[in-house]
């Protein structure tokens, strides 16, 4: 088991490396990060531009830049992934990539964790109900809702949910829901309870949106695996023995049927990261999604690389965890 995990990890490293080369090439070729600088009025002097080129290592070739990004050897001491430095941001000195990334994680994690918990819960419940009542009206309705959520562009879904929140505020004449940001501006003078309410009010709408993007696929998956289990011999045997239906479902069928969902949900982290990019834009959170969008807009090579390394590592880790969990949960699987 440990050996297996270690081996999987060893294999993941060259994959990550290859991905970093690919992304580095893509980002580096995608335009001149200093184009905004060149467009300023009045135009900056050539010395200012040259200094900027040197500061951001734009005066070096792409292979050199990649090597520098990875090792930091020959740089100004602000670069080198292996030394734990992400490199300078073209958005200027105050923008520290590492710090920004860390603050992005702390913001995004509450969105993502809340959404995953909600999506999993709902997916299990509706998947099981759908499977138990296959081809019933309820099954069709749940299927339809799931497909509708899958069919709507995320940004549209988000806008609709925002309007729903506003409508709720207006009809109840409260201000529970917030539509922008992760918290109100001034939180230092709030009590713990007020802070909790404020956070929750900001959290609900984007979470529901993100939740819906994952829920649909997961509930379909839960339905399928539940159906399979319900038709399996051991469940039939349990039924034949006269075990009560609710007990069969809860104790025998559901447990087994949950196993695949665990892996699917773990792997689903890629999709969630994509959803975060869109949803943080709509609800103006300053998390990882916003970090990414701004980095792309500014053609901020090193910031983008940091982001992709983080997301790549997360995905690799998620896949690994999925595999390991599968082994832990399903006694039929043994790793050599």
């Amino acid at each position, binding site marked *: 088991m440990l050996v297996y995990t270690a081996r999987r990890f060893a294999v993941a490293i060259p994959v990550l490396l290859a991905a970093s080369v*690919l992304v580095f090439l893509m980002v580096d070729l995608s335009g001149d990060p200093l184009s905004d600088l060149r467009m300023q009025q009045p135009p900056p002097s050539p010395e200012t531009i040259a200094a900027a080129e040197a500061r951001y290592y734009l005066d070096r070739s792409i292979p050199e830049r990649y090597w520098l990004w990875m090792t930091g050897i020959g740089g100004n001491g602000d670069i080198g992934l292996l030394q734990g430095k992400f490199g300078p941001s073209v958005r200027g000195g105050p923008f520290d990539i590492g710090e920004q990334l860390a603050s992005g994680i702390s913001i995004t994690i509450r969105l993502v964790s809340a959404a995953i918990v909600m999506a999993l819960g709902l997916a299990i419940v509706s998947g099981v109900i759908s499977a138990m009542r296959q081809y019933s009206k309820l099954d*069709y309705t749940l299927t339809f809702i799931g497909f509708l959520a899958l069919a709507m*562009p995320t940004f549209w879904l988000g*806008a609709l949910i925002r309007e729903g929140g506003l409508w709720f505020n207006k009809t109840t004449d409260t201000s529970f829901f917030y539509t922008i940001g992760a918290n109100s501006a001034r939180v230092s003078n709030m009590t713990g309870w007020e802070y909790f309410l404020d956070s929750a009010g900001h959290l609900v709408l984007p979470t529901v949106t993100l939740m819906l993007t*994952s829920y649909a696929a997961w509930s379909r998956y839960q339905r399928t695996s539940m159906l399979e289990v319900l038709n399996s011999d051991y469940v039939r045997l349990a039924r034949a023995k006269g075990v009560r239906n609710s007990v069969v479902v809860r104790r025998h069928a559901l447990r087994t049927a949950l196993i695949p969902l665990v892996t699917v949900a773990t792997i689903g982290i890629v999709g969630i990261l*994509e959803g975060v990019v869109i949803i943080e834009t709509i609800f103006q959170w300053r998390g990882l999604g916003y970090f*990414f*969008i701004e980095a*792309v807009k500014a053609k901020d090579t090193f910031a983008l690389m940091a982001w992709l390394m983080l997301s790549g590592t997360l*995905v690799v880790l998620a896949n690994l965890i999925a595999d390991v969990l599968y082994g832990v949960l399903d006694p039929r699987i043994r790793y050599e």
Partner: protein
Amino acid sequence: MSDLHNRLVSAEADRPDLTEENVNKGEQLTQMQMIWRRFRRHRAAMVSLVLLLVIVAFAFVGPLVWPYDHTVSRDIAGNLSPSLQHPFGTTKQGNDVFAQTMRGAQQSLKVALVVSIVSTTIGSIWGAIAGYYRGRIDAIMMRIADVFLIIPLIVAVAAISGNVRGGTTWYAVALIICFFSWATIARVVRGVVLSLREQEFIEAARAAGAKVTRIIFRHLLPNAAGPIIVAATLLVALAVLTEASLSFIGFGIQPPDISLGKMVEGARTAAFTRPWLFYPPGVLIVLICLTINFIGDGLRDALDPRQTMVRR
């Protein structure tokens, strides 16, 4: 991408018991008929199929008969509300939104089809080869696929599409999405092939001295057709949505050309002020994805004799 992956995994989980399939040509026909019969029984899928065909006709035949095209014309007054002449109104600059919607649907569908076909082809072959050879070749090929899998799709596309010179055309968008979506298919097909290759009819073909290409193209891939078809179908919906997301963050098809995603993005603040700009393309996106999901569902059921038979 994970949406797709999830659905593909479930497609795989649902796949028919392949040992029962027969490679005999004459019987395949009857099998096709059986599948068609089962598919027809899936009412939602049938309705969806008809609806999708209507949308396709609207997108591809519509522009031929409609008097306006999607470009700006000085003769069209700007900012009109819907009327008989302009059923979806006009934009500020003077486009007929009805014509734009047709054109947008056409471009979005073209993107989706190209993605679906190209990705599925590449992914299937890649996955089949990896699954057939196993061992080191498999390991290397799947690691290469992993490289594309660990980069989130819209992230990759956003990063790369700034690089496409002279604006982003529909085929550029399509090819970029392909570039980062074939790997999921490859992974699914490899899984199927891994189990197929152990079966008797493959061993028989091998014993009869069939060449590798023949085994892969004549025996393995046709027998993996079920999951592949479902995956390809779902990829269409995924591509439509990806294109829309890309437009939202500003990296999709660029004007003067138009796509559904671009239209919805441009009108997203208009949802309550000028709904006729927002809803037609939006509803069309939803309809395309919805119908395709149902068709995929119907296909899955039709290709899987076990599940449709069980009625409790």
